[in-house]
């Protein structure tokens, strides 16, 4: 390499001086190095710093969050964000923390080195062992995104001086200058030895901070850490198995001295809101890619886990949790309903956390990364499953999920196969869980049009609310503003139209269902009236007929022995035949009389079965049916209900059993009535040794007008099948929080129908 002699001489002259200009020496030396014809190297233009700030950090809120994350990484317990005159460009933003701070060496060798942060080599913070959030070493350039000048003041404990560096991004870091040639002024300042931390004063802010932007920043801070979702406000998930020897005291962020909106929201959420979730959903991908999702709902007595058929091989092991909300007055206290729905609109969604810090924009109000909103509006999803219905988070770490990497702009994860898998996993898990909840709720929902509420389609008013909200935050054209108008995107209007159409369809479906139900009620009502009159007449004639039988018995006393004996037998048969009829008449009258009472009362299951059995004891003995009653515990009581309803249930079961037993033609006739406490339910089971229910009918026996009886039975009690009996049983069960189902018969029996309703203590 031929060295330029003039340059070499200048270098020599300069180093001979008492105070050489080392900057000049470096520039000259670099010129010599760069003139090597056999080697080349990159240089960085100073303007690149501006690019790093402007282009890698998308929004100013994101930039601010990056600075907050840096403070967290430095073991700060508190970060204060102050904005002075920032409602227009040119204000001042001060971010100050009580973290470890930096020595001048660290500032010089680490902070001032682009993209080679010590956080990669030391991923865990020294004091509280936090998993560091920033890894790429570009967070510091967020300061450039935020303002034109930065004053960095930092100090460590044990030193009486701190280091102050001033960066004038605007005048120094200009295009055309080499970055190596730009020097920022370092100075020392005195401080108490125990003080530590870093203060960033960003002057001449680039943009104004509107209230909405400040709110968004505050909101982002609320959800900055996944601990928000914990039931323990002080719990801090580090995402690492390593636990600090020193307890992490937590991390607080203040904006403008208080900025407590987030804090209040968080407290309200934890204390008042999350408990009212209808279910919690957790999903997990294991090391081998197998995955499962679990839905737990105390309210619905639901606890199910479903394994995924697919394997998720590129995400790495991860876990998500979500609180699932359905904003109906039937699912949460009325006083909370409106607030909860508001929370849902503002903060709902599934957020993503990487190394313990939020990855934006997943789960933001305008984000729909799981396509929950779009699929709901198109009715691909028919259960309540908009983003607002979920408060969830996915936790990722660099070590476990290396392919789920944040973009440099901090605006999401790199769109790759791994992200697609993550999306499919979370979406699939939430959708399955929401459907399970809907299924259980539908079973528990009270049938009949009056108490029906559509569970699947969001109300048009909600959609309009969303639309108005979106319009209020969207940038508005001055002409429109002047005219008092707002711009509404075409897509939102389309979504509203689709929502209205879906609502209309659902309303029509409900109307048809109501008409059908009404028809069934009309049939039942007319049958009920006829039965009531029949029961009354039967009961009324009972005393007369039995009286005549008795009178006849008295009259034959005068006959001679032989004739008296013969007539006595005939009278005995007449007595027996009529008694059976009167049992039914008496039962119907008592049933109708009990129905008259509108009072709901908790019933003793043992007492109800005993009374029912006594009513038919004589009849069943005549039919040679052996009945076993087994109630355990004896104290078992139903939720408050109409007494006649449990009689209806038992009568339905009895008539079905008798029909079934008669079909077998066998002499050994057995019925077993049992009741048990089954969780929060009373489980009343009716078993018989009749012909049983074919498996293909098991799901249909509870449908209205489903019957297998085609011939009119001659028996006064069991009669023909109208196909409404088990439907009524099922409706009664559902109206008391339970269900009716076909069960597995115990030994010696061929059919078992189970009737579940809430027990008293859990009602």
């Amino acid at each position, binding site marked *: 390499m031929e060295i330029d002699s003039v340059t070499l001489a200048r270098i020599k002259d300069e180093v001979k001086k008492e105070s050489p200009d080392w900057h000049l020496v470096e520039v000259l030396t670099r010129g010599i190095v760069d003139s090597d014809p056999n080697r080349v190297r990159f240089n960085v233009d100073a303007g690149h710093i501006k690019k790093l700030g402007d282009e890698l950090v998308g929004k100013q809120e994101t930039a601010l969050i990056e600075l907050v994350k840096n403070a967290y990484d430095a073991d700060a317990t508190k970060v204060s964000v102050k904005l002075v005159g920032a409602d227009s460009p040119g204000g001042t933003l001060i971010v100050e923390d009580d973290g470890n701070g930096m020595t001048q060496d660290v500032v010089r060798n680490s902070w001032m080195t682009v993209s080679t942060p010590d956080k990669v080599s030391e991923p865990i913070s020294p004091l509280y062992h936090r998993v560091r959030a920033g890894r790429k070493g570009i967070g510091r350039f967020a300061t450039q995104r935020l303002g034109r000048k930065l004053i960095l003041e930092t100090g460590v404990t044990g030193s009486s001086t701190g280091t102050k560096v001033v960066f004038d991004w605007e005048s120094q870091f200009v295009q055309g200058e080499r970055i190596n040639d730009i020097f920022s002024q370092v100075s020392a300042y005195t401080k108490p030895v125990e003080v530590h931390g870093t203060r960033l004063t960003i002057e001449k802010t680039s943009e104004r901070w509107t209230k909405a932007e400040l709110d968004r920043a505050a909101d982002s801070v609320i959800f900055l850490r996944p601990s928000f979702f914990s039931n323990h406000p002080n719990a801090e998930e580090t995402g690492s198995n390593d636990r600090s020897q020193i307890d992490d005291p937590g991390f607080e962020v203040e904006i403008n001295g208080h900025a407590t909106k987030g804090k209040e929201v968080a407290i309200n959420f934890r204390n008042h809101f999350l408990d009212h979730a209808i279910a919690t959903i957790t999903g997990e991908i294991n090391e081998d890619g197998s995955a499962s999702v679990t839905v737990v709902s105390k309210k619905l007595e639901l606890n199910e886990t479903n394994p995924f058929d697919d394997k998720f091989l590129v995400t790495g092991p991860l876990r998500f949790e979500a609180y699932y909300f359905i904003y109906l007055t039937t699912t949460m206290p009325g006083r909370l309903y409106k607030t909860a729905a508001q929370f849902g609109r503002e903060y709902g969604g599934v957020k993503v956390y990487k190394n313990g810090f939020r990855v934006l924009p997943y789960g933001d109000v305008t984000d729909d990364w799981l396509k929950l909103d779009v699929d709901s509006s198109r009715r691909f999803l028919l259960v309540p499953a908009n983003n607002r219905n979920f408060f969830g988070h996915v936790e990722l770490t660099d070590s476990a999920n290396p392919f789920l990497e944040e973009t440099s702009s901090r605006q999401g994860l790199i769109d790759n196969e791994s992200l697609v898998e993550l999306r499919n996993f979370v979406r699939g898990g939430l959708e399955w869980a929401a459907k399970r909840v809907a299924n259980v709720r539908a079973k528990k929902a009270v049938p009949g049009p009056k108490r029906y509420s559509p569970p699947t389609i969001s109300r048009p008013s909600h959609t309009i609310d969303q639309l108005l909200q979106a319009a209020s935050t969207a940038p508005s054209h001055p002409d429109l503003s002047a005219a008092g108008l707002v711009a509404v995107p075409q897509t939102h209007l389309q979504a509203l139209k689709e929502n209205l159409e879906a609502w209309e369809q659902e309303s029509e479906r409900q109307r048809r269902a109501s008409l059908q139900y009404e028809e069934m009620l009309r049939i039942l009502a007319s049958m009920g009236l006829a039965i009531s009159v029949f029961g009354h007449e039967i009961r009324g004639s009972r005393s007369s*007929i039995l009286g005549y039988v008795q009178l006849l018995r008295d009259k034959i006393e005068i006959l001679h022995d032989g004739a008296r004996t013969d007539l006595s037998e005939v009278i005995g048969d007449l007595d027996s035949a009529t008694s059976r009829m009167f049992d039914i008449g008496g039962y119907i009258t008592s049933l109708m009389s009990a129905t008259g009472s509108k009072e709901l009362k908790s019933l003793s299951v043992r007492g109800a079965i005993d009374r029912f059995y006594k009513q038919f004891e004589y009849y069943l003995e005549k039919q040679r049916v052996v009945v076993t009653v087994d109630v355990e515990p004896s104290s078992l009581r139903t939720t408050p209900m109409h007494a006649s309803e449990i009689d209806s249930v038992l009568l339905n079961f009895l008539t079905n059993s008798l029909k079934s037993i008669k079909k077998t033609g066998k002499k050994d006739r057995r019925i077993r009535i049992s009741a048990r406490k089954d969780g929060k339910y009373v489980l009343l089971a009716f078993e018989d040794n009749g012909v049983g229910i074919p498996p293909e009918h098991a799901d249909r026996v509870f449908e209205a007008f489903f019957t297998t009886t085609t011939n009119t039975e001659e028996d006064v009690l069991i009669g023909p099948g109208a196909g409404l009996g088990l439907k009524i049983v099922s409706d009664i069960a559902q109206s008391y929080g339970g269900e009716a189902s076909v069960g597995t018969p115990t030994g010696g029996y061929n059919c078992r129908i189970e009737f579940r309703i809430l027990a008293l203590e859990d009602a």
Partner: protein
Amino acid sequence: MFNGFFIDDSPRDANLYSGLLSEKNSLSIRPLKLEDITVLGKKIISSSPDIVAIDFRLDENISDSPDAIGLYKGSTLSQLLRDWTLDLPAQDFPIVLVSAETKMRSYHLRDQGVQSQFDLTYSKEQLSDRNHEPRRQLLALCKGYVEIKKVWKSLNFGSLLNLDPEEFDSIKTQGLNKGFATVVSPSGLSRFILRNLIERTGPLYDLYDLAAVLGISQESLKLVVDTEHIRKLQYEGIFNDGWSRWWSHRVDDWTSEQFATPATTLPGSERAKQLTKILGRKVNPAKSTWNGSPDELFAVSCVCCHNPTELRHSLTVFDGARPDFIRSRRVCWDCIQSDRPSSLGIQIDDFDQRLVKRIQALEKGADFE
């Protein structure tokens, strides 16, 4: 032979129930056609009946009674008859209500006073069943009225109850004295004795009470009820042919003497053991309806299931008009747990009401902790 009438607005029912109320060779009840209440009333009084039975609803089958002027109920007719005989004790007679069960229940619920006008009430269903009890009771009633009217001018309550003066004095309470002192007619006295002595537990025990105090099963009681010892305890006063009753003071005294302690302080098993020896017949102890134990201190019969029950496993029934000589009724815990009181229209006393929910929540046989 006693004679009487049955009045019903349905001629068919009138014939039927007249037959069912009658007892061959001893009680003849004839149907009486419904007509204007005054005419009918006079007809009844002038016939000097030994007994009159009236259906409650006389206003339902008006087509069958074209001569009826105005519609009236059985209670109106009964009140008229009572008014007319009030000052004529020699012409007083028992009046019995006979009506369909449902009607009786609905009217009694609305007007408790209706029942008090009648000596006895029967449902038509009761008369139709194959038992002779109502007829036996009607005969006893007729005989009782004859006795009362015979001694009416020099009425001695003790002798009417077949108690010597000393024994009568021993059972008298302020309430009993006042009750006897306020009767002004034979029917008034009849109703006082029936309502307070025969139909309620106080001076007299019924079969269920007796089993409870003896601490034995009802089946066992049937085996020993005719023994010399028990017969001596029996009530042999007025109306005794119609109802089996035992003087409570005699039973209590006798058992205390035999057991050398009040009966209810001994477990049922011990009482049964001793009674087996005393009566010479094997008797079994009662068993608690709550825990099945024969070792409980049985004291009363449950008003719902009638089984002997112990005080500690029973609650007091509300009785708003209980005189001092009437014992409070109780319901066993088993019936409480099975909701039987409410289905029978029995109300638990407010003082014990607080325990109902706790009993309902207990496992059968368990005690409060």
